[in-house]
């Protein structure tokens, strides 16, 4: 019965699809808090980020305190606790990319987008974040836009990529 109450309380915040996916994860773990990261990812996948309301709703569902879940959410820098743009650009600044001159590419990218690390474009289309390695060092410098990986970056490539996504965004 308690479960029903919790579900109905959180239902207003979390969608039934999210609840379904989280419940599926719950069936795989011995303790509810074990599904914390997956639950956060599920919610973020649909909404782009995890709001306070969602965080509290997930915490209730997993029988955790908001503090405990917040500790997990803020520990991982790919769980976003603030709104992000439609596409998150993860720009690698790790050692291989640095050797291959990623700093210049980053300047170029910032110039195109008119934003720095941690910022979102005014039209809410892009958020730029640094990332320590995307596992494609042989093709450095690299970055990810949303789920797409782009390698061997140079100025013209960057312009093309951004132009492509801007167009996509307009559709």
């Amino acid at each position: 019965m308690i479960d029903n109450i919790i579900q109905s309380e959180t239902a207003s915040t979390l969608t039934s699809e999210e609840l379904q996916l989280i419940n599926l994860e719950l069936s795989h773990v011995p303790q509810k808090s074990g599904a914390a990261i997956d639950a956060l990812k599920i919610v973020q996948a649909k909404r782009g980020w995890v709001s306070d309301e969602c965080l509290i709703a997930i915490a209730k569902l997993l029988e955790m305190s908001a503090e405990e879940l917040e500790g997990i959410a803020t520990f991982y820098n790919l769980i976003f606790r603030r709104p992000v743009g439609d596409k998150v650009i993860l720009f690698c600044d790790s050692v291989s990319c640095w050797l291959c001159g990623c700093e210049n590419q980053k300047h170029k990218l910032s110039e195109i987008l008119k934003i720095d690390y941690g910022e979102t474009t005014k039209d809410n289309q892009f958020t730029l974040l640094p990332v320590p390695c995307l596992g494609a060092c042989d093709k450095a410098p690299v970055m990810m836009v949303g789920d797409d990986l782009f390698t061997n970056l140079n100025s013209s490539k960057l312009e093309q990529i951004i132009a492509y996504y801007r167009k996509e965004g307009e559709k």
Partner: protein
Amino acid sequence: MPTIIVDGKSYEVSRGKNLLEACLDAGLDLPYFCWHPAMGSVGSCRQCALVQYRDDDDKHGRIVMGCMTPAADGTRVSLKVDEAKEFREAVVESLMLNHPHDCPVCSEGGECHLQDMTVMVGHRDRRYKGKKNTHRNQYLGPLINHEMNRCITCYRCERFYRDYAGGKDLAAQASRDRIYFGRHQDGILESEFSGNLVEVCPTGVFTDKPFLEDYSRKWDLQSSPSICSGCGVGCNISPGERYGRLKRIHNRYNQEINGYFICDRGRFGAGYVNGDKRTDYVGLKEPSGTFKALKRGEVSYHLTRWIGDGNIVGIGSPRASVESNYLLQKLVGPSNFSAGLSFKEQTILKRQVSILQTTKARNPSVKDIEMADAVLVLGEDLTNTAARIALAIRQATKNKAIAMAKEMGIEAWHDGAVKNLAQEERSPLFIATPASTKLDDIALATMTLAPEEIADFGLKLARHLTEGDSEDPQITEIATHLTTAERPLIISGPSLLNANIVESAAAVAEALVRSNQNTQLSFTSPESNSIGSILLSEDQNLTLQKIIEGINEIDVLIVLENDLSRRLSAFEMKQINASSAKIISIDILENETLEMSDMVLPAASFAETQGTLVNNEGRAQRFYSVFPPLNDRLPSWQWVIELARAIGNKELSAIESFDEIVELCAKNNNFQALLSVAPNKNFRDHGLKIPRQTHRNSGRTAITADVSVHELQQTPDNETPLAYSMEGLNRDQPSVLTPFVWSPGWNSNQSLQKFQAETDGPLKGGASGVKLIKSSGSGVSVACDPTFSFTLEKNFWRLVPIYSLHGSEEMSYHTKEISQLAGLPFIVLSDKDANNMKVSDGDGVVVTGENLKMSISVRVSSRMAEGCAGYSAGYNEIEQLTADAHVQISRDNDWQPLKPVVIATDRIASFKSQDSRHV
């Protein structure tokens, strides 16, 4: 015992320790931050680095963390080698990168572990020139101040708050140099033990907020060895005073009782000592009904004129010292003396004492409770009635984890590993109460029962343990856990005012002890000297109710530190008021009893006098004054002597010192051991008195320079071996006379380890406190046959008391911060009852009974016994509600929720505009 070699010198160390503990035990100064003797090691701060060598030939060695390395036999290490020293200095330098240079305005300054360690490693010059991190601080309630910038990320706060004390609303957030320890949002910390963060934090992130508002440096505080008077557990405390004001309370280590931690009532609940409700002068009631303040010189004249030689009856108090109670009993004679308890309280407490005097089970200290490996709680919400015991039970549930670790060869101090191994495995804890408790989260099973049902349940269990006749699966399960445990503990107490519960707890323990001699039986006691009062008046049965019956034959009624309105109904109070008996009240704070007295004598609080208190296990402990009483206040026992002089009682009039009272009292059979509780006033430590002030106490010669340039004489203390002075020796004396801890290079409370015989071990000054209750071991005879039941009555509810750490206790309630936290009185209803009544949380109900009709706010709980209604016990506004009363409860349709006392910060509003936590 293993021998370790540190820098070429051999040291014998106790088995099962880590290198950090071993070095500290050897008297070596090895800096540390995250290790805590009660919480073990996690190796997060990297401060206790030393170099370990394989053997004699190994000249290079390797850096290891002292707290994470076992001190095995033959371990060779070096503290002094440059590599280790540089490493430790570098750790402090890196911690200082973001630490602000705000020591002069930080309330931790002067007792800061970070300061001590920085000096110890020799780090002086900061090379870092960059910007420091700035965090947003949170509002954490009226007790704790938050200053996150000072954090050095040792994780001690989170480990204490969550892992040790079971709090949920404080956690580490973010990662690397953005780590933040706090709540999800601004708000009052929920744990009853939050105050320990002040002492656990090695720097000034969490500090004592009331102390901050009325601040003095540690070295300027005058301290004393004292005992908390907040409840019956008797935690040892070290209160600090300056300018005649009680400034703060710190924990005072007692291995058997509180160890390193006390509850928030104990730490923050003594502000009433400085409050405006204190009685200052002798008051004589004039015909107009107002009090006239008498000059000190006039008092004895008025007393003599006034008392005469009529029939004098004395009412003692469970919150007054043994000595004060004893003296009053001696003055009025045993048959005219009442312990000052209501009939129910007296009956139950007396039974508790008689059980403890005969039981075959062990009567455990708090430390013993921590060692239990299966616990059954009958009828007590321990977190709110004996908070320190609840904290001990939380540790007891970890004994399974420690046992699992032992099997794997993991030492108990290896905290992270032990927790990781055990996951959710806990030693079994069973709780039978009428309402939810704060230990429910770690209980294997909770039972929501009405008081009679708890007693019935206990007896059923006891019968099953002896005869094995029950088929109730829950009873058989609990019985299995209790019988297979090595050190089972049954704990109960008087809080539900039901004697049968106490009886049933004894029955279970007696049944268990037949097969297991390590069975423990413990009872809580409600007030600081409840058990002392009972031991004193063991043979007498003069209850308050009996005094009222014969009130018209009494000429003078002397009430000692007892607000009778908390134990008597309004009707009974009226009877006393209407009688011709003259009432003399000796008390600390204004209260209803004082209001109706004819003469008021202002008493010294626990901070201004000495005395002995007997805790729940029957342990007598001495507390000492922190500062001399102000105004015309006198210790209660001195007032009783004044009364004796007025009456012409030669024996008592001749008493000149406190020690004489102790000697007299020791003639009472139950108090023979009283003489060994503490040394008498002639004790000297290496020929010197023991100073209450630190050797650095500042401004002694200048403190009154605005009045006179002559140095004031220090107030002499002729009653104790302690002095109101900085001269003397705070070293090598018995523990009972240790006012504060300090050692060269160790200015923080971590200097405690210099006073311990070994880390986490007994104090060098020996144990303090003497058990007055020793069991004869003859066994308790309990009738296991009775059955009790609770019948639901339509439209009637049974009132059961619900206790709050903040609010239920008489004295602490008069502390500003505590009364804020106490909030408004409430009624707790089961969700089923609430549903039928159509009320929900925050709605109002009308409670109607005999001479009773009031509207109260409602809390709905899924763990509240049906047919019972919990009421917030001890709240003055609803003092007409009494345990076991039958009342009608209905929805209050005109309920206007009263506005709670607003606890907020002016900073909250300004924060709302900024959503970033990390700037």
